């Protein structure tokens, strides 16, 4: 081992420029892969946290006929609030149209219990309002409907008998959330007001659970745990992550090709050295081991270099975050203006392991030639 180590160090530092290039490219891959993956992990974490805080709470109890992703289920997907339940915030979903500046816009009214503490929606702003029909909307909705705080807008809906009714609602607050699902096309008002204007007294489409909720099976309602609700988000992030793998793959390929190339050249040029090792009584396996070790040493040096410049760089990156281009924010999944990357142990050590492993394999492959080398020709300096 001492032998392999000293020999490799000496050889590697003998070829300074080549070594530097190999090590630099590889260290660059380390930093970029960890950086990009960190952004993804940070996004995943932020999206989960925002979704929990704004939308999912500790899980949702949903009417068995209601599918949040299918607006055709809104009409039938509701029922009377069961008795003796606790730790649940009822929400009734109802369809409506609003007419800002004469345009017609489809909207979903969500009536919510104003005293709720399950999610961050600023429902308190609706309590004791001086307006008859106060509502809150999110910044996306405000932007698409061009509504500001204090604006009145005409709203039209059908009551429980299917008869059209209309009134004027007033925007009393605009909240800033990263979760499009509770924002785009959504209008939040008191559930009691919604009961009153629709006649759907005491009905709800779903409930948001808080920490006090203990689930027991209950007729007509099904419970979706927090994890189940979050799954599509994590799946989407994972999918994005997958498409980014192309970048990792290219980077690693370039770095590994450089090592591979160095190794091929090294085995070719150093044939008389290899012959000498064999003549001195080294087994071919040991010679292969030395050359492989030498190649994989590049990744160790790259790791050291990556730590030197990558650690402060990534630490700074984690601090200032990654500004998301506005276009990306229009995706249907929660995404903040700035994502703060998270560099977890699993990510860092996983990447290190991957790069070390791959570079060792790539270092090994060209050295297999050594086992076929004729030591006599090698000693004579004849290239094989």
């Amino acid at each position: 081992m001492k032998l392999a180590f000293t020999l490799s160090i000496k050889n590697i530092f003998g070829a300074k420029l080549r070594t530097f290039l190999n090590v630099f490219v590889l260290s660059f891959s380390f930093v970029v892969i960890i950086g990009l993956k960190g952004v993804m992990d940070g996004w995943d974490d932020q999206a989960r946290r925002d979704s929990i805080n704004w939308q999912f709470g500790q899980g949702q109890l949903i009417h068995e006929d209601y599918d949040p992703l299918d607006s055709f289920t809104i009409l039938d997907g509701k029922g009377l609030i069961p008795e003796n339940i606790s730790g649940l915030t009822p929400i009734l979903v109802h369809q409506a149209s609003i007419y800002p500046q004469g345009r017609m816009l489809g909207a979903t009214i969500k009536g919510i219990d104003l005293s709720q503490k399950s999610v961050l929606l600023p429902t308190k702003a609706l309590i004791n309002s001086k307006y008859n029909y106060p509502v809150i909307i999110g910044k996306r909705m405000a932007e698409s409907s061009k509504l500001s705080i204090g604006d009145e807008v005409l709203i039209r809906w059908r009551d429980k008998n299917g008869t059209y009714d209309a009134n004027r609602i007033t925007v009393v607050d605009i909240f800033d959330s990263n979760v499009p699902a509770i924002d785009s096309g959504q209008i939040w008002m008191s559930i009691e007001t919604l009961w009153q204007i629709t006649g759907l007294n005491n009905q709800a489409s779903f409930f948001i659970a808080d920490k006090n909720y203990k689930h027991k099976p209950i007729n007509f309602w099904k419970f979706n745990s927090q994890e189940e609700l979050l799954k599509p988000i994590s799946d989407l992030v994972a999918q994005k992550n997958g498409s980014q793998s192309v970048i990792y793959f290219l980077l690693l390929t370039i770095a590994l090709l450089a090592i591979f190339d160095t190794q091929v050249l090294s085995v070719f040029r150093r044939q008389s050295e290899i012959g000498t090792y064999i003549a001195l009584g080294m087994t071919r396996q040991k010679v292969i081991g030395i050359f492989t070790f030498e190649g994989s040493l590049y990744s160790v040096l790259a790791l050291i270099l990556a730590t030197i410049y990558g650690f402060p760089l990534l630490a700074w990156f984690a601090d200032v975050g990654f500004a998301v281009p506005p276009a990306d924010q229009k995706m249907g999944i929660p995404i903040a203006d700035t994502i703060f990357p998270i560099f977890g142990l699993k990510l860092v050590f996983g990447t290190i392991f991957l790069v070390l492993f791959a570079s060792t394999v790539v270092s090994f492959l060209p050295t297999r030639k050594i086992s076929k080398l004729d030591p006599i020709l090698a000693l004579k300096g004849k290239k094989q």
Partner: protein
Amino acid sequence: MSKGYPIGGKTFMALKNLTISFNEGEFAGIVGPSGSGKTTLLNIIGSLDKPTQGEAIVLDQNISDLTHKKAAYLRNINIGFIFQVFNLLPVYTVYENVEFALLLQQYSGKERKKAVMEALDWVGLTSHANKKPDKLSGGESQRVAIARAMVKRPKILLADEPTANLDSENAHEILSTMKKLNKELKTTFLFSTHDEKVMGYLDRTIHLRDGNIEKDIIKKS
């Protein structure tokens, strides 16, 4: 034994059915013109090659039967090589080049140091221990090679035209060094050479021509 090389569908016989034995502690040389089979013979004795017919028995081991690993072990412990082109490891210092042979064996650090310094002393290069091979003259390089081959005190030392790249002064110096080591350590020395200067030092001269032994002359002492 015989050794044939396949060349374009035919076999070229580099060694033709020759029989020879060497005695322990001998200082013997195989002499003959270029292409006569000297290197081939030494390589077989050194277990780097195998005869195609017959047997080569080295230290009670049949070379043809050795696996790669067994052959490596034989060379590691019992056989030292000296080459025409020195073949020092360029990234190592003189000291490390000599130490290298011991790193393949189970020596403690202290034993290694003692053995390496002693070997450098044999060849008069203790003061060059920290130099790199590219800072050495040809004669010095070959002396390092001798130290590297002898540091493990092998039973057999094989030197393939060791003086071919040296001037006559260096050639004489190297030969007297080897002769001295042969006396002190009882190592068997086998040379290949077509250098007249070498022949004067040999106790036994085996003349090879076209893969056959022409003459085998033992000098009376």
